[in-house]
């Protein structure tokens, strides 16, 4: 039976190649998108799902509430850990670890004079034994209970052990030594297998936390005894007892802080505690951008939802195409259905036949999708987590998903057409009356609704693309308050541990000054716009008026403002100084302080209570962050001791190739002074463009989605036009005989279709306007939704539709009526 179905299905595909191809292409695009998006979403949602007790594991995080801003920090004050262990109930286990950032690792080699050095190793933490109660490893050597007990011990994962010691057997590694940052010598006490699951706990080297306990320098670095300072490196995980609510632990943590803080002589007990702790569920770590995930790439749930929506849309459009074209074509099959019915087929059997046909087509489309997947993975590469690749396709759950997709799409796309087809009455069909009758117009209604739906989706996405692109363009081209072209910056190495004064950066600065191709140079803090910021709460007193403000602090030298072309509105430039002695503030801060005219602010002082520094100038407002954020109070000071970034203004009139030469010369100078360090540099305009990476990613995703949607919709339109021109061949012939011109005929046929596109446009305008206005609310500085966006969308869509229609209708209208009437 099914053999017969499939045979006829195949022959039908062959006979109606174009329709089948359109149907398959539409479905394949939808299915490919769904497949790739499934891979992404599945990967992202799978983070850290493999841990035992994962529902009871929480990370303790901190929130610092300043008067006018709230800061989140994924760490906790270190004393919280020991106090919680002894004084809190309801907690089964606690572990605390320090993420060490990048470290220099030296591995001594037997027989060689010099050790093998790894300059910048990451994924290193200081952990205690209990860490392994939370994150379970397979131990190749050593024991989880004792490995990290003693100071100066280390546990490596097998991948790190391999890069340090080669193929040496894990058991042999116990007792080997490694030197960290030239000062911490440790002994290997364990080797574990790398975690197999998808995880943010990507650490590969576990130094014993006891090492810090015996090293005052390290304790200072991570504020070991302070209840008032929080370093995001200080991570605390808790395992709650079954049935204990996170909120109750949060409450006891707050009480604990209150008790401890008062005992701390440094704290001003009369002041309100601005730090509060909360529990972050394990599953939240990968997605909550308020708290970082140990510096790992985080997932972005809205983007995932966006992707799901896009995948759903594309799939829906493919199905709509299928329904449209199949029902439109149904008259072709009517005769067969009539015959089959007279031969005793039941409706159910016919349904089965048409569904199996749909299944076959969907299946073929799915195979095509799997073949297309690598290409799509390439297109969506910016959204695809590094763990997802073509090889991840070959997993049971992926095949299961595809199977499910095939079944769902088959039912979704096939059920209605099958139902329509099998309702044909054999008598009418065999008398060739299938075209006429009222049932035809009813089906046309549905097709119209579906076509309008397609064009609503396509046009909505088109408008979204235009608005997002316009905003990105606006962001990148707005006058930000400084120039950004041809400016390069590089960090000069620094070492916080070293007590020794390191003045090598000044040497480099002086050498670069004379380098040709460099117009201006500055040794300062961060660029005017930068991801890393440092802020303080400052008090300003003017008479009896007291203004307390959160102020962003930046460091500049005398050449900085000129280099970045920032406008000094009042006062003078900073004088060179080793530590902060005076400030230049931005216009916004001047306004916040109550000065209408920026010049009035010059001469006043502000700072921590008692020790203030004078304002010597006011700089015009500029954007330190993306346009999402409003401009906030800010102050520049000259403090050469904190300046480790060299800014270079290259010759704007030179070509990028010449810039490259200049940068190479800079690198040579750099290497001469810092032979052990890597030279890295960033173009400032690129850094700013990176602020809008999300938006640019969205724009790119939308562009693709839109292109695909428009393409699928056009395929659908093409299919319908072909059908209509075929069905109306006789009418066209008769009209021609009666004297209609080609143009009149084209107009006659096209009118209905263009009306559908217009209806879709009318529906989409308010919808898109509302949605995009909402999206733009996210930006403190935003572009407008201009009328031309809608005009372009509407006219563009109309034009595309006209092209498709013309291609087909003109051909139909040109046919010699003698021919079309004879074949009837």
């Amino acid at each position, binding site marked *: *039976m099914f053999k*017969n179905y499939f*045979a*006829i299905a195949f*022959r*039908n595909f062959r*006979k109606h190649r174009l329709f089948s191809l359109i149907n398959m292409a539409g479905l394949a695009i939808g299915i490919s998108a769904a497949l790739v998006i499934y891979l992404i979403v599945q990967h992202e949602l799978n983070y850290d799902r493999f841990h035992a007790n994962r529902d009871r594991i929480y990370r303790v995080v901190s929130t610092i509430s300043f008067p006018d801003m709230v800061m989140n920090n994924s760490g906790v004050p270190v004393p919280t850990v020991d106090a919680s262990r002894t004084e809190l109930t309801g907690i089964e286990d606690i572990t605390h670890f320090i993420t060490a950032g990048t470290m220099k690792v030296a591995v001594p080699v037997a027989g060689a004079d010099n050790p093998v050095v790894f300059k910048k190793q990451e994924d290193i933490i200081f952990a205690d034994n209990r860490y392994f109660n939370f994150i379970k490893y397979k131990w190749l050597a050593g024991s989880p209970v004792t490995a990290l007990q003693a100071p100066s011990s280390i546990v490596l994962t097998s991948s790190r052990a391999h890069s340090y010691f080669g193929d040496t057997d894990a058991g042999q590694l116990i007792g080997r030594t490694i030197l960290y940052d030239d000062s911490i010598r440790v002994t290997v006490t364990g080797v574990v297998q790398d975690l197999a699951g998808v995880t943010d706990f990507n650490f590969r080297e576990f130094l014993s936390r006891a090492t810090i306990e015996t090293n005052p320098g390290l304790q200072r670095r991570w504020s070991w005894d302070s209840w008032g300072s929080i370093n995001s490196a200080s991570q605390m995980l808790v395992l709650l007892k079954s049935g204990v609510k996170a909120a109750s632990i949060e409450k006891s943590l707050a009480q604990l802080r209150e008790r401890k803080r008062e005992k701390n002589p440094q704290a001003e007990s009369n002041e309100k505690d601005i730090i509060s702790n909360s529990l972050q569920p394990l599953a939240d770590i990968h997605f909550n951008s308020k708290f970082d995930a140990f510096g790992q790439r985080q997932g972005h749930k809205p983007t995932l939802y966006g992707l799901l929506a896009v995948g759903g849309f594309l799939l829906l459009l493919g199905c709509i195409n299928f329904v449209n074209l199949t029902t439109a074509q149904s008259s072709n099959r009517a*005769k*067969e259905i*009539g*015959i*089959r*019915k*007279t*031969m*005793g*087929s*039941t409706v159910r*059997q016919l349904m089965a036949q048409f569904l199996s046909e749909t299944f076959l087509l969907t299946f073929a489309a799915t195979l095509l999708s799997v073949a297309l997947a690598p290409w799509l993975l390439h297109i969506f590469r910016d959204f695809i987590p590094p763990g997802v690749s073509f090889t991840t396709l070959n997993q049971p759950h992926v095949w299961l998903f595809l199977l499910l997709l095939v079944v769902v799409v088959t039912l979704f796309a096939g059920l209605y057409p099958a139902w329509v087809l099998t309702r044909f009455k*054999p*008598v009418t069909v*065999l008398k060739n009356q299938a075209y006429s009758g009222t049932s035809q117009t009813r089906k046309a209604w549905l097709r119209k609704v579906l076509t309008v739906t397609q064009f609503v989706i396509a046009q909505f996405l088109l408008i979204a693309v235009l608005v997002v692109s316009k905003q990105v363009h606006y962001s990148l081209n707005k006058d930000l308050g400084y120039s950004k072209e041809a400016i390069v910056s590089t960090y000069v190495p620094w070492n916080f541990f070293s007590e020794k004064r390191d003045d090598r950066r000044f040497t480099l600065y002086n050498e670069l000054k004379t380098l040709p191709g460099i117009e201006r140079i500055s040794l300062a803090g961060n660029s005017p716009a930068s991801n890393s910021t440092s802020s303080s709460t400052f008090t300003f007193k003017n008479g009896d008026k007291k203004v307390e403000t959160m102020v962003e602090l930046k460091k500049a030298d005398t050449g900085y403002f000129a280099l970045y072309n920032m406008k000094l509105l009042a006062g003078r430039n900073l004088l060179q100084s080793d530590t902060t002695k005076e400030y230049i503030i931005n216009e916004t801060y001047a306004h916040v302080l109550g000065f209408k005219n920026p010049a009035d602010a010059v001469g006043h002082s502000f700072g921590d209570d008692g020790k203030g520094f004078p304002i010597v100038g006011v700089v015009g407002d500029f954007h330190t962050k993306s346009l999402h954020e409003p401009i906030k109070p800010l102050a520049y000071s000259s403090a050469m001791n904190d300046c480790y970034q060299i800014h270079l203004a290259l010759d704007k009139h030179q070509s990028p190739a010449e810039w490259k030469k200049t940068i190479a010369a800079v690198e040579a100078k750099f290497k001469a002074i810092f032979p052990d360090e890597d030279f890295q540099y960033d173009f400032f305009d690129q850094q700013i463009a990176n602020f809008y990476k999300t938006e640019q990613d969205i724009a790119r995703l939308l562009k693709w989605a839109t292109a695909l949607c428009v393409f699928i919709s056009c395929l659908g339109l093409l299919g319908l036009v072909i059908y209509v021109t075929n069905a109306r061949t006789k009418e066209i012939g008769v009209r021609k005989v009666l004297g209609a011109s080609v143009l009149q005929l084209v107009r006659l046929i096209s009118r209905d279709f263009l009306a559908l596109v217009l209806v879709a446009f009318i529906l989409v305008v308010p919808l898109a306007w509302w949605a995009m206005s909402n999206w733009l609310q996210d930006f403190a500085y935003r572009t407008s939704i201009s009328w031309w966006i809608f005009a372009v969308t509407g006219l563009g869509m109309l034009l595309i539709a006209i092209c498709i229609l013309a291609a087909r209708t003109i051909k139909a209208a040109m046919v010699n009526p003698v021919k079309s009437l004879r074949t009837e």
Partner: protein
Amino acid sequence: MLELKHIYKWVNTGNNRTFLLKDINLTINEGEFVSIMGPSGSGKSTLLNIIGMLDGFNEGEYNFMHESVHQLKEKQRSSLYKQYIGFVFQAYHLIDELTVYENIETPLLYQDIKSSERKAMVADILDRFQIVGKKDLFPTQLSGGQQQLVGIARALIARPKLLLADEPTGNLNSKQGEEIMELFSTLNKEGMTIIQVTHSEKNADYGSRVIHLLDGMIEKK
């Protein structure tokens, strides 16, 4: 075998009721070869379709093999004609996408007959109609007469008791038509009940009885 009592069928156009069939009373016994004749629009095909249960009627009684067709549900009716009736059409109505073999096999698929048995039955009938050599061709590759032969083979494959033929030779030349009629009369002699609609007196002569229709009514018996 079948009995029609006071069958009426009409369509309403505006306020007018147009009768397609008017008070048809007809009994057909097993083994008969009946020809229905009449001018265009006299209701021949409508009558045949009603007999074949492809079409309904507005009033009257229809008993087929001791079943009251007018009381049956669509599904039961379908299983009834599936079992007992074979159709032959003027336009052959072969499925263009299926080969000769597959066309003939199709009715068997709907009767849940096993694959091996199907093969034997189709081979049998191909043999009998001497079209074994054409079994892998598609309908469009055959002449009209050959197509009608396939159509008849298909109608007979499920061994029906009643063969309904709507102008089976209408699209054929006279020689092909004669061959088909010879075939019908042979089948009739073997015990098959046949009802055919025809325009041709010559064809009607092959049958045992002729029914004349005019404006939806039986003229004479």
